[in-house]
């Protein structure tokens, strides 16, 4: 039988009946293959790259030494490990000394990324794979200038002496929190000898992990973390990147789901037509002695072959597409793009075969029941199993979507949404019919003929309008979401986003720094006064008593607090009022901190700063958009609360490369000013936006291809009937012009009806998805109106083309054929 089935397949292929189905499966698989391959590799590439900002894949951080069992477990899982101890200590160069933030790192540090160093302050930089060896010390430019120490000098750290071998420019996991003290890096092997860590010292221990089993380690360690320990990975370290990635992934998933949905519609429609066209052949074959079972076997094997071939072609197309996109982006990646895993391939093949199995096979399975009597009399029809097919299809679709999108909510709402469209279309048709009944439709006018045709073949009209509306809806949803996502991303990282933060600017330096900046044409943000204070009381009770270990750990450091009467950009007051007129001091606190510490409006917080003890009432709670790269503060106080002489200033500039060089002159002139460069992280987020945008474009192209296939499949569905009707009308004297015009009107009406329904539903659906899934703001989309002429035009063109032979072929031939 398999030989016969191949032979028949070859003959069928020539006839073109199979092509539309093959094309539809191929498109579905190509969409999925391209998207899954792309997001698989993009994900690996971005995570790999982002992890360099962490110097590891996972970090356990603690205020006490990290448990030995963590180390044991990590060794057991063959993870790479490094340790880091952060503390403050005086560093001496003879009589010159300065309190410095010191990081002691083990030999294997950093696990990912490199340490950037220079030979002299603000000099040319090089990258090292390791931190300082035992006996060595890296100091930053500020410390170098402050204590007048150069590379080669020997400095005292506690009881030990270390030799300066490099000027520290940037370590991969440099925190963006603003540190007042200069920085230095030494080896953990020298920490004991230095004797600087004493009971009660403020110390932070970090254990860094990387390797294939990091995920497993994370799962193991997360539930057993102690109160004073925290876990950091790319999501917590860099929420902006994590969130962009998350959104991008959800979008791509949604888009490919919808793409597959479109293809499945095309496949179903094509399968139905295929089965219809095969009915006569099957009847003939049955007269030749084929049993129902052989018929099913024959077509099942054909369908599987088609599914398999289509899957392979789809994967090939998908692979090529994603490779092309990655090649275009390759220059953006510093690291190698990892090869894709086998998962996307398996998924694509499974999809192709499932399409064949669940959406084509049920259609051809019905051929089993075709009566051979059909060869003698047309009244023996083919009992269609549409309802069974619908149920099988809907269940398969829901399971597939659930599997793919990982959410029942989305799977069910999509299927229900499509179902609603079908019901809505039926209702509209019923309404139109009820109205049309009141008027006489004259078959002599193209309008009358067209409308009468549509209403007479209500079942077909219903299928066509529903399918076109679904396809239009899907494309509209994708286009709208894509637009708002990309727009949102671009807003998040506008071109003038500052990439250099200057802080620790003493009040007397504000003017000269401002002049220097304007002389050189720097673009800057506002100037924020900043004080560093410790929170020591909440509602008058010392935090040692009022907070849990974990809560205390969260705030047990000096906070950068600004004071201003103006609510900064990217801040939204969630509760309370922004700086109302009150007696005493007031503060506005970030919502995350409020939640972590269990605070509420009206609570008071006590601050200790430079020997002062100050108290303020919380009068507002703010939501801060940390995605935006601008100066942001957990706590904002009213001006006048903190003594002005304790403040330093913070500002940020957007500098190009040449201006970056000017910056070094400024820093050499005012060595106490500190600098944070965020160029790298901004560049990374931009890259993500660009890459994901191009992935989105790619998916768009495939979605359009699927939609066109749906259109073709659906128009094809009625061509036979239209040809026949046309031929009959022509024998009765209808002229070509009337026929063609009425058909065009039919297609126009179908297009218009689908477009209007799709527009209405998509506006609602997009609003829902935007708000629920992407945490974006809703807005109306007047641009949707373009759908109407667009869809009408497309349907009319496709319909016109598909029925072009109606008026060309002699009616006798058409009738003869039928």
């Amino acid at each position, binding site marked *: 039988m398999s030989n016969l089935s191949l032979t028949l397949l070859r003959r069928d292929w020539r006839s073109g009946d199979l092509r539309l189905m093959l094309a539809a499966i191929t498109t579905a698989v190509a969409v999925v293959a391209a998207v899954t391959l792309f997001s698989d590799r993009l994900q690996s590439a971005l995570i790999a790259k982002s992890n360099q900002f962490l110097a590891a894949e996972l970090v356990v951080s603690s205020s006490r030494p990290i448990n030995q069992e963590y180390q044991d477990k990590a060794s057991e899982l063959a993870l790479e490990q490094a340790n880091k101890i952060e503390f403050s200590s005086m560093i001496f160069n003879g009589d010159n000394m300065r309190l410095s933030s010191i990081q002691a790192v083990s030999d294997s540090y950093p696990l990912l990324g490199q340490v950037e160093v220079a030979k002299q302050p603000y000099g040319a930089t090089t990258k090292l794979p390791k931190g300082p060896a035992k006996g060595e010390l890296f100091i930053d430019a500020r410390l170098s200038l402050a204590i007048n120490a150069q590379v080669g000098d020997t400095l005292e750290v506690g009881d030990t002496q270390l030799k300066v071998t490099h000027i520290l420019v940037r370590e991969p996991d440099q925190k963006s929190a603003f540190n007042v003290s200069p920085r230095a890096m030494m080896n953990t092997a020298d920490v004991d000898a230095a004797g600087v860590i004493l009971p009660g010292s403020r110390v932070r221990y970090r254990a860094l992990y990387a390797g294939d089993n990091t995920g497993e380690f994370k799962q193991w360690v997360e539930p057993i973390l102690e109160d004073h320990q925290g876990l950091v990975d790319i999501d917590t370290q860099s929420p902006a990147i994590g969130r962009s990635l998350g959104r991008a992934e959800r979008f791509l998933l949604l888009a490919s789901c919808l793409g597959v949905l479109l293809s499945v519609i095309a496949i179903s429609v094509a399968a139905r037509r295929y089965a219809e066209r095969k009915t006569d052949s099957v009847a003939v074959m049955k*007269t030749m002695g084929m049993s129902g079972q052989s018929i099913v076997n024959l077509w099942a094997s054909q369908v599987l072959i088609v599914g398999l071939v289509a899957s392979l072609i789809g994967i090939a197309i998908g692979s090529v597409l994603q490779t092309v996109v990655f090649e275009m982006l390759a220059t953006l990646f510093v690291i190698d793009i990892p090869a894709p895993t086998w998962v996307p391939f398996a998924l694509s093949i499974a999809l192709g075969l499932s399409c064949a199995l669940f959406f084509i096979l049920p259609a051809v399975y019905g051929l089993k029941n075709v009566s051979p009597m059909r060869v003698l009399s047309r009244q023996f029809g083919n009992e269609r199993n549409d309802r069974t097919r619908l149920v099988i299809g809907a269940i398969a679709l829901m399971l597939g979507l659930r599997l793919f999108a990982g959410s029942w909510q989305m799977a069910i709402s999509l299927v229900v949404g499509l179902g609603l469209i079908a019901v809505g279309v039926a209702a509209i048709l019923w309404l139109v019919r009820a109205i049309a009944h009141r008027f006489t439709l004259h078959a002599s006018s193209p309008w009358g003929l067209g409308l009468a045709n549509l209403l007479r073949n209500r079942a077909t009209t219903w299928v066509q309008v529903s399918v076109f509306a679904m396809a239009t809806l899907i494309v509209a949803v994708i286009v709208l979401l894509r637009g708002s996502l990309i727009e949102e991303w671009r807003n998040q990282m506008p071109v003038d986003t500052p990439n250099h933060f200057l802080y620790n600017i003493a009040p007397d330096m504000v003017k000269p720094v401002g002049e220097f900046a304007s002389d050189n044409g720097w673009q800057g943000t506002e100037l924020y006064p900043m004080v560093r204070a410790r929170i020591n009381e909440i509602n008058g009770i010392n935090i040692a008593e009022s907070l849990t270990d974990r809560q205390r750990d969260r705030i047990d450091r000096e906070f950068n607090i600004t004071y201003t009467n103006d609510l900064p950009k990217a801040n939204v007051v969630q509760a309370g009022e922004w700086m109302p007129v009150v007696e005493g001091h007031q503060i506005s606190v970030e919502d995350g901190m409020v939640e972590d510490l269990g605070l509420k409006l009206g609570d008071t917080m006590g601050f200790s700063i430079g020997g002062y003890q100050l108290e303020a009432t919380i009068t507002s709670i703010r939501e801060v958009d940390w995605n935006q790269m601008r100066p942001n503060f957990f706590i904002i106080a009213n001006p006048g609360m903190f003594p002005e002489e304790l403040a330093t200033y913070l500002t940020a500039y957007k500098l190009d490369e040449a201006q970056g060089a000017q910056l070094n002159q400024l820093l050499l002139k005012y060595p106490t000013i500190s600098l944070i460069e965020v160029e790298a992280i901004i560049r990374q987020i931009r890259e993500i936006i660009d890459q994901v945008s191009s992935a989105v474009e790619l998916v768009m192209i495939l979605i359009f291809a699927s939609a066109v296939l749906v259109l073709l499949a659906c128009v094809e569905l009625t061509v036979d009937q239209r040809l026949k009707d046309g031929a009959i009308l022509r024998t009765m004297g209808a002229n070509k012009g009337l026929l063609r015009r009425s058909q065009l009107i039919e297609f126009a009406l179908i297009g218009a009806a689908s477009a209007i329904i799709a527009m209405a539903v998509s506006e609602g659906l997009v609003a829902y998805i935007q708000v629920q899934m992407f945490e974006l703001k809703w807005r109306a989309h007047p641009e949707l109106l373009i759908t109407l002429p667009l869809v009408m035009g497309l349907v009319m063109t496709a319909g016109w083309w598909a029925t072009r032979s109606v008026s060309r072929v002699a009616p006798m031939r058409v009738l003869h054929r039928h």
Partner: protein
Amino acid sequence: MIEVANLQQTLNTGSTPLHILKGLNFKIAEGESVAIVGPSGSGKTTLLGMLAGLDVPSGGEINWQGQNLVAMNEDERAQLRADQVGFVFQQFQLLGSMTAIENVMLALELKGVKQATDEAKSILTRVGLGHRLDHYPRQLSGGEQQRVAIARAFASKPKVLFADEPTGNLDTATGRQIADLLFELNEEQHTTLVMVTHDERLAERCGRAIRIEAGEIVNT
């Protein structure tokens, strides 16, 4: 060869049952050629379908060389058709997606014949279409299509050939040629021929005619 006893076909359409065949009895001997004639709606086509095992009657028996067709399931009847039956239809019923030779080969392939191509070529040449092997049905005239259908029917060397108005869709001259071909091949292969027709002249060429009116045999 074929023995029909009390054959009935009743359709339940609404309140009153519709009797299409009302207890027919007749025999067809091996090698015989029989015409089933009668006006439209008399039940000729239904009878042909029953005889060929394409449909099952509501009552009575059809014995094929001692085997009761009515008691067989669809698969067994399909097997019987595969082994012993050939068809020629009024509408030709060629598969439009296949060429002339492929249509004939399909019948042979379904029977598992190895030299399907050679045999198909030879029989198509026999019916005078040796030069049109690779043409699709739509490229052939009505007469040519029916020749292909005849070649297809005889290719698998059936014991019984059922023909449903084989010339009904053809002009008189072509119809006559097709009838000639049908009888020639019938003669050559010693096939039993059962033919439904309106055409009295065609019926006369058969050995015997069974005349049906309103579901009853009026004379045989």
